């Protein structure tokens, strides 16, 4: 059981207030010089003023892992929409690229893009069932994801 002291709780409250204060004080894009930038440390996003709007200008690379299970596929949420994902488990690798065949490198791969293993429309990617679709029951799968 975690014990939170009064000092820790106070520090947490102060940090939350500071973060909220900083976010609230980011000026509207229309009020800053053209091309101004700022970096969101909590989301790793670099934003630039473009045509009076804050636009994300950097890519995010995330890593992680998941354990395959016996279900008929599931979404692996990585926190953002991906442009490419590489997955590896044991000696099998997978590459997910939009508008291209989905490749299960050692077994010929799936050519469909919606039924087995594919980039999710909004966040991360979707697995299928079994080793050909990055969901081998009980195996740890490691991923490297790049944002759009």
């Amino acid at each position, binding site marked *: 059981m975690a014990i939170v002291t009064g000092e820790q709780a106070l520090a947490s409250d102060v940090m939350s207030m500071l973060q909220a204060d900083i976010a609230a004080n980011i000026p509207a894009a229309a009020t800053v010089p053209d091309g101004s930038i700022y970096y969101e440390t*909590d*989301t*790793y996003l670099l934003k630039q003023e473009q045509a009076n709007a804050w636009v994300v200008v950097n890519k*995010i690379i*995330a*890593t*992680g*892992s*998941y*354990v*395959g*299970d016996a*279900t008929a596929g*599931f*979404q*692996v*949420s*990585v*926190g*953002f929409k991906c442009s490419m994902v590489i997955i590896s488990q*044991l*000696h099998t690798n997978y590459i997910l690229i939009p508008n291209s065949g989905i490749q299960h490198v050692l077994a010929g791969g799936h050519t469909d893009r919606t039924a087995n293993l594919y980039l999710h429309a909004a966040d991360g990617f979707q697995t299928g069932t079994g080793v050909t679709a990055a969901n*081998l029951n*009980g*195996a*740890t799968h490691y991923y490297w*994801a790049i944002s759009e």
Partner: protein
Amino acid sequence: MQYWKKLNPDGTILRVESHSYPHVVPDATEITKEEFEKYIASLPVIEPEVRDLATEIDELKAIVDEIKNKKIG
């Protein structure tokens, strides 16, 4: 790195995940690195499939020869 688990309806762990990008994983509960590693350590070791292709080819050749011999006979 953040660690998450998803549960079965009976409360047992369905799956664990780790993610470097900070975000809330839908329908999952955040766990400690220790709990994550304990679950991973409890999984049975999965051995990669090892195929002896030379032997498989020899077996197929034998089957083909057998079929040929039947046709000739």
